[in-house]
Every structure is written in structure tokens, then in C-alpha cells.
């Protein structure tokens, strides 16, 4: 049964709630829905799950974009109500008929709502019955599983599902297990806004069920194993330890005598620091503190290309669109938005935005524009582009303050060092950018200390040692083949002893699929509870950005033994100078993780560290390429 149904304006005033369903909602699901879903441009998703102590709800919504209204239905998660979408669209139609911007109370809507609800429930019952009749004729496993799933926990039909499962004995366990697994899966993903992962998991489940009965059993076993893994506290020794003990033998290619010395690094003597010149540490002002000059000539280019894209369509289409733009079309339908959105999506993908993200963004923009009246003298393309631009600015604007210096001062007052951990996959530039951040902090009179917790890669400790020497800051190192979590812990203790304000912890690069390595990483984070977990990602990455960030977040959440795990707090985007205007990786990363981009690395020297300029990124993303349009025209 529905818990609550609300109608409110986009400005925030609640116009109508159902008085009969008087149960007060626990927690604040509506506010959370708005903050983490609708404002995050995920309004194209099908539903949203909300957990509060003592309740777990699923929320479904629909918009009336012309009048600026939002309709939200809340119900318990364990129920699978089929009629909610139907009901919402019917309510939308009826309410928009009686809506008046000046009115603020709509008590007469109560009766209409009751009527509509009965109609919708009746229709859903009919659909269920017709499905069940079809089941006896068609022995398709997939459909059966689907309807058992739908009918399983809904009030009156419990008896029916019991009867069905009695018919096929083996399926009985599966059917009961299925809702639980769904619930389990959803619990793992809740609060992280990972609706696509959930939808994907359900899709896989359905596909597997269609192939055969024993596959289902295997799938169930795997899933229960995974569930068990997430629950137990695991502290396995990383597997690469025994491998490292086997030292590498030098390869001998021909009969030349063995090279005795291959290590040409300077011996670190007590006076080693004096040999290096002090000038190297001062390369001028870091680019973080310099103003960004946005070129204005790019704007005129953008308008030209936009005109070109409009001429793109056929002559007849052009004429009708001109006519419509002058007259102002009645209401935007999804079919009208599709060509413009497709063009935009392709444009975004050529700018290196991940395909999944571009798809979701376009859906969200479509949801916000559907049913809106076109203002006269505007084309559909320009409306869509304006909406997309607004959405992009909204996503890239950070949700919380990214003022690190303020945080450092706050930690300083409390007397403890501010700990930053750099994580990421192999070769993205963690150590290089760590040195850049240290340089920038030094320029603002902050005492920095480095911690070399990359105890795996050869040369990592020496690399950091060189940086520390050039910047003249202390470095805490324990050599190789040590447990990084313990090294980090001791580094933090050392920092509080010698009065360092910030500790920058360097970790080894690891692939997001490598479970033992991800476990050691989450252990490091759990043991040391850093103030900032910075994910270092390169701007060259394409669709893999989505996979990297979502898996990192997921593993950090799943493998952490604490009930409230630390996730990625910020993103450091590197190698920005290698991409011209294909800046889409920034958008993919911010969208999928919700973390703001705190720094942008744009070169290999100490001063090449910038802040993200939201306006220039949005401009670069929306600029259509002229060459591509020429191909379309011919």
C-alpha cells in the first residue's frame, strides 16, 4: 500500500498530500530525494530507494514541466506495487486540469484521488490475473520468476504464490530467496545513488533465469557467497607478499660479464640535502592561485556552429521548425526532443564523456523538458541546449566547500594533522601530483609531510624522497614490502610529534577489480581515518572512468569493517594538458561519484596545479564540431 503521495511545486510548496494515508514518514525521504537524485540530474532513473532507521522506502516521481509541478509516491520497499506509475500519470493529468498558480489548497482533489487509486489498483489486479492465466499455458521460466517476484509479498496474493510454488517444488526455494536477494542487493547499493547497478543486477538475474534451472541455483549460491563476504570482517594477508620474496635474477643475454652495479642513485648521506640547490624548490606561484582568463572569442564560434547544426536538417523540417519556432509549439513531446538530444549525446561522447553518463544525462534533461511549452521564437535545439547547459553547471558545481586551506586550519586548531590519502589505478600520476599539492601548500605556509606508503613499486620511495629533498619537507618512509596501513599510522604519529600540519599519503596504484589490493586499501583507510580521500584519475580515461570510480567506491564501502565506511571525498584530475577540449572525463567522474574535482593537474612541474573552472568546461563540452556537421550535411 502507498505510504504517501505528495504534489509540490518546484519552488518547494506542498500543494496536496493524501490525508487518508496519514502515516508520518520516518526520516525525510522527500528532501533526500530532491537533494541526491533530482538535483543530481538523475531524474531519468525509474525509482529511488531511501533508508531511515526503522523504515525503508521506495520513491517514484513524475514531473509536469509546463506547470512546474512534481508528483511523488512513497511506498515500502518490500512491496512491489505495479500501479504506481500508472497512478502517477493519471494524477498528473487530473491535477493539471484543476491547477491554478494562485490557489494553494486543493481539498477537492481528495475524492478524485480516491477514485483514481481504486481504478489503478483494479487495473493492476486485472493485469496480475491475466498474467497468472498465461503462466499455465507457457512454461517460460523467466516469466514465472517475474510474476512470482511481483506477486510474492503483496497482501492478498500471498496465498496464490504459495500455491504456485507448491506446484514446482524446486522453484519454491528460489522464489522465496529472490525477494530477499533483491533486498540484499538493494541494501548494498542504497544511499550511493547507484540505481543503474541495481537495474543491471536485476537484468542479469532475469537473463540467467531464462537459460535453465540449475543456472539459477549457481547464481543464488554465488550471490549468497558474496553477501556472506560483505558481512564478515576480513583481514586477509595480501597475496602478493609471498611472491615478492622471490628476488628477481638478472637476465643474461649473451656471454658478457655480469654487471655488478646497476644502482646509480646517490648514496643518501647525512649531508645529502646540502648538495641540492635550494632554488629548485621555488618555481614561482602555483597555478592554483592564478586567475583563469577565459577567452571570449570561443563564444562567437559556438554560436556559428550552433547555426550550422540547425541548417543541418532537411529543408522541409527546417521550414516547419521555423514556423513552429515563431508560433510556439503546444507541448514538447519526447519524440520532438529525441533528435536534438541524440545530437547532444553524440556531441558529448566525442568530448570523451562516458557513454552511460551521456545517456543518463540526456534522459534527465528529457524528463525535465517533456511537456513544456516552447517559448515563441526559440528552436527546440536551443531550448534543449540551454537545459543541458544548466544541468552541466549544476553537476559540476561542488556540493560542499572545497576550501582545503580552511580545513587544514580547522584541523590545526584541534591539534591534529590533516591527513590526505591519494588513491587511484596504476600510472595516473599520484606521486607527481602529490608533490604538486605539497608545493602549493608550502606556498601558503603550511607544514607538510609526505608518507611513502607505496611499498610495492620499485623506485616509489626514492621518487618521493627526491621530491621531499627538492621541497625540503620531511618524509616518512619504511622502505619496501611493509604493510602500508602500519606505515601510514606511524607517519601520522610522527607528524603530530614534529608539528606537521598536513600529511600526504602516497599509495600504490591498483586496478579496481583486484580484490586483495582493494582490501588492503580499505584497511589503510579504516585504520587511519584520513580527513580527505582523494581519487586521482587521468583526463585521458574514457568509459573506464565510470567503472573505476564506481568500483572503488563500492569496494571501499563493502570491504571496510566499519558500519560507516569512508568513501571518495574528492577527485584530482591529472594530465589535463594532454587533452585539448575533450574534457568529458571530468563530467563522468563527477557524475558517477558525486565528489567534487578539487585539483586539476596540467603538467609535470610543481606549478602545474589548477582549480576546475566550471564555465570553461561546460563551454568546451557543448561546443559542436564544425567538421562533424559538414559530414552530416553532405
Amino acid at each position: 500500500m502507498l505510504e504517501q503521495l505528495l504534489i509540490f511545486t518546484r519552488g518547494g510548496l506542498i500543494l496536496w498530500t493524501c490525508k487518508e494515508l496519514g502515516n508520518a514518514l520516518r526520516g525525510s525521504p522527500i528532501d533526500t530525494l530532491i537533494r541526491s537524485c533530482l538535483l543530481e540530474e538523475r531524474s531519468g532513473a525509474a525509482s529511488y530507494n531511501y533508508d531511515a532507521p526503522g523504515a525503508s522506502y521506495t520513491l517514484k516521481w513524475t514531473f509536469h514541466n509546463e506547470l512546474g509541478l512534481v508528483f511523488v509516491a512513497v511506498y515500502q520497499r518490500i512491496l512491489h506495487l505495479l500501479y504506481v506509475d500508472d497512478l502517477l500519470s493519471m494524477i498528473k493529468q487530473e491535477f493539471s486540469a484543476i491547477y491554478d498558480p494562485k490557489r494553494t489548497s486543493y481539498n477537492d482533489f481528495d475524492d478524485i484521488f480516491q477514485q483514481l487509486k481504486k481504478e489503478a489498483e483494479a487495473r493492476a489486479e486485472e493485469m496480475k490475473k491475466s498474467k497468472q492465466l498465461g503462466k499455465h499455458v507457457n512454461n517460460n521460466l523467466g516469466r514465472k520468476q517475474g510474476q512470482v517476484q511481483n506477486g510474492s509479498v503483496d497482501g492478498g496474493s500471498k496465498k496464490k504464490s504459495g500455491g504456485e510454488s507448491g506446484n514446482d517444488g524446486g522453484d519454491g526455494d528460489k522464489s522465496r530467496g529472490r525477494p530477499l536477494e533483491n533486498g540484499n542487493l538493494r541494501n548494498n547499493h542504497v544511499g550511493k545513488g547507484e540505481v543503474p547497478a541495481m537495474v543491471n543486477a536485476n537484468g542479469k538475474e532475469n537473463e540467467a533465469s531464462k537459460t535453465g534451472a540449475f543456472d539459477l541455483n549457481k547464481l543464488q549460491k554465488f550471490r549468497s557467497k558474496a553477501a556472506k563476504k560483505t558481512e564478515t570482517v576480513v583481514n586477509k594477508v595480501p597475496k602478493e607478499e609471498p611472491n615478492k620474496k622471490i628476488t628477481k635474477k638478472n637476465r643474461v643475454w649473451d656471454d658478457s660479464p655480469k654487471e655488478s652495479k646497476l644502482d646509480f642513485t646517490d648514496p643518501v648521506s647525512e649531508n645529502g640535502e646540502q648538495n641540492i640547490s635550494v632554488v629548485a624548490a621555488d618555481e614561482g606561484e602555483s597555478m592554483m592561485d592564478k586567475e583563469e582568463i577565459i577567452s571570449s572569442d570561443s563564444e562567437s564560434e559556438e554560436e556559428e556552429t550552433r547555426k550550422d547544426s540547425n541548417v543541418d536538417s532537411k529543408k522541409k523540417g527546417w521550414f516547419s521548425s521555423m514556423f513552429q519556432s515563431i508560433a510556439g509549439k503546444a507541448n514538447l513531446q519526447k519524440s520532438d526532443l529525441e533528435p536534438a538530444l541524440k545530437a547532444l549525446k553524440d556531441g558529448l561522447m566525442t568530448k570523451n564523456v562516458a557513454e552511460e553518463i551521456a545517456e543518463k544525462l540526456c534522459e534527465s534533461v528529457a524528463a525535465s523538458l517533456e511537456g513544456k511549452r516552447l517559448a515563441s521564437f526559440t528552436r527546440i535545439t536551443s531550448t534543449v541546449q540551454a537545459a543541458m547547459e544548466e544541468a552541466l553547471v549544476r553537476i559540476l558545481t561542488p556540493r560542499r566547500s572545497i576550501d582545503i586551506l580552511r580545513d587544514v586550519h580547522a584541523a590545526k586548531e584541534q591539534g591534529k594533522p590533516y591527513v590526505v590519502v591519494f588513491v587511484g589505478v596504476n600510472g595516473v600520476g599520484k606521486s607527481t601530483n602529490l608533490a604538486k599539492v605539497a608545493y602549493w601548500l608550502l606556498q601558503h605556509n603550511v607544514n607538510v609531510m609526505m608518507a611513502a606508503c607505496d611499498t610495492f613499486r620499485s623506485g616509489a620511495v626514492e621518487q618521493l624522497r627526491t621530491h621531499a629533498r627538492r621541497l625540503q619537507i620531511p618524509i616518512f618512509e619504511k622502505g619496501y614490502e611493509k604493510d602500508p596501513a602500519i606505515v601510514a599510522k606511524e607517519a601520522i604519529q610522527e607528524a603530530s610529534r614534529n608539528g606537521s600540519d598536513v600529511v600526504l599519503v602516497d599509495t600504490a596504484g591498483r586496478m579496481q577489480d583486484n580484490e586483495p589490493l582493494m582490501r588492503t586499501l580499505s584497511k589503510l583507510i579504516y585504520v587511519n581515518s584520513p580527513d580527505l580521500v582523494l581519487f586521482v584519475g587521468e583526463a585521458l580515461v574514457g568509459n573506464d572512468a565510470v567503472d573505476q570510480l564506481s568500483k572503488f567506491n563500492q569496494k571501499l564501502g563493502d570491504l571496510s569493517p566499519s558500519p560507516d565506511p569512508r568513501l571518495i571525498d574528492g577527485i584530482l584530475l591529472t594530465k589535463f594538458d594532454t587533452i585539448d577540449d575533450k574534457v568529458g572525463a571530468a563530467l563522468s567522474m563527477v557524475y558517477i561519484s558525486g565528489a567534487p574535482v578539487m585539483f586539476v593537474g596540467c603538467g609535470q612541474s610543481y606549478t602545474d596545479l589548477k582549480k576546475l573552472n566550471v564555465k570553461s568546461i561546460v563551454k568546451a563540452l557543448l561546443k559542436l564540431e564544425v567538421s562533424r556537421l559538414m559530414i552530416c550535411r553532405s
Partner: protein
Amino acid sequence: MDEEKMEKLKIQLQQLLNEAHEFVQKIPPTQINVAIAVVLSTIVLFLIIRLFKRKSSNTIVLTGLSGSGKTVLFYQLRDGSSHLGTVTSMEPNEGTFVLHSELTKNGKVKPVHVVDVPGHSRLRPKLDEFLSQAAGIVFVVDAVEFLPNVRAASEYLYDLLTKASVVKKKIPLLLLCNKVDKVTAHTKDFIRKQLEKEIDKLRASRTALSSADISNEYTLGVPGEAFAFHQCSNKITVAEASGLTSDISQLEQFIREYVKA
């Protein structure tokens, strides 16, 4: 040679002047008068329009963190009640109306243009559109949940006070402590002192980044002294209100002070 040329030019100029003089004299006087009158009246019209523009606008901007009660206050001002309640705003609420409590007043009351800007950090850019026409800003603070949000509130307030449009036009700011009907609400003096302390700290860390932040062109307060609100060039006052119980008299006073009836 040059002197001859000069002489010739002089003579030519004089001839032109004479011709022009005769031409002007030939036109009947009414036409000249009408032409002069038209030119003068257009100049006067422009001056009047300019004067009108400089006259105070009637826009009041309600801003503050998300959840501080701006939308409730907006509807209290407009209708006298907050109806069925509010949720997080996704878009600004605008309206030009006579304040609800003044509907019963006799005589002509000037309507006020009130704008309620969403407080969610993702929607901050919307504030800039309305600041340019603001006659007064109301910064709403949640007096109950003040301490957990004091940093975010002070950062927002700092950004607001250092915006070019606010400093140049000296837009007055009212610090409104909302939700005072609750028992655990803090007093307005406490809130004011805490905000001053936080902004003082922000001054230190923000001046470090000042050249990178284009919007923060101005620094606050007197360097070397602790920050206090009375050091700002625009007038800052503190008041209390309660949106849910319609206790908004101090807010209405502020509005009436700066939007002349």
C-alpha cells in the same frame, strides 16, 4: 603663398556662415521653435528615466542555507500561512505582492517584489541573477541547527558580503535567526558572535586564495582587528523570526524600511 591660401579660406568660411545665417533666418520661426522644443523634451525625458532607475528598486532577496526556512517565510509574507508545508526548493520563488499583514491597512501600499532563492549549494549561481536588482538581502539562519552548519553558513555569508554588487551598492543585510519558537534555539547575539568569529577565520584563509577567486574582490573588515559586522560598509542588522508561528514582525519592519511605501 600660405597667407594667400589662409585668406581665401577665411573668406570662404565667412561666406558659408553668411549663407547659413540667411538660411536659418528664412525658416519660419514656428518650425525652429518646435524643433528646439522636441530636442529639449527628449533630453528631459532621458534625465527623468535615469532618475527613475536610480530610485530604489523594490526587490528583497531571501537567501540562506538549505533548510533554514526561506520558503516558509516567503509564503508567510505573501499569504500569512505556510499552507501544507514545504520541501527543498529546486527553483526560486518570486512574487510581487503587498505584504499580507498590510492588506488591511488603509491607503496605498506599495507592493514588494520578494525573491526566495534556493539554498542548496548546487543552485547557488541562481543568486547572482537577483542580486543586481536587490534593495535588501535577508540572510536566514536556522537558530536550532546552527552549530553543525556554522561553517557552511559563514562561508555563504562571506561570499555574499564580498560580492562586488553587494559592496558597491551597499545593499543592507538582515541576519534573520529563524525557528526561534523552538526551545533549543540559540539567541541572536550568540549567532552573531559565532558568525563573526568564523568569518574572521575565513578572512585569514581566503586572502590566501584571493587572487584566484574572481568573485571575492573585496576583503572584509579591518586587517589586524577581529571582524565585526559593523565594520562592513553596508548596514548589517540582526533580528529574530519564527516562520511556522507567523512571528515575522521584525522581518516586515526591515522590508518596510528599505522598500518605501
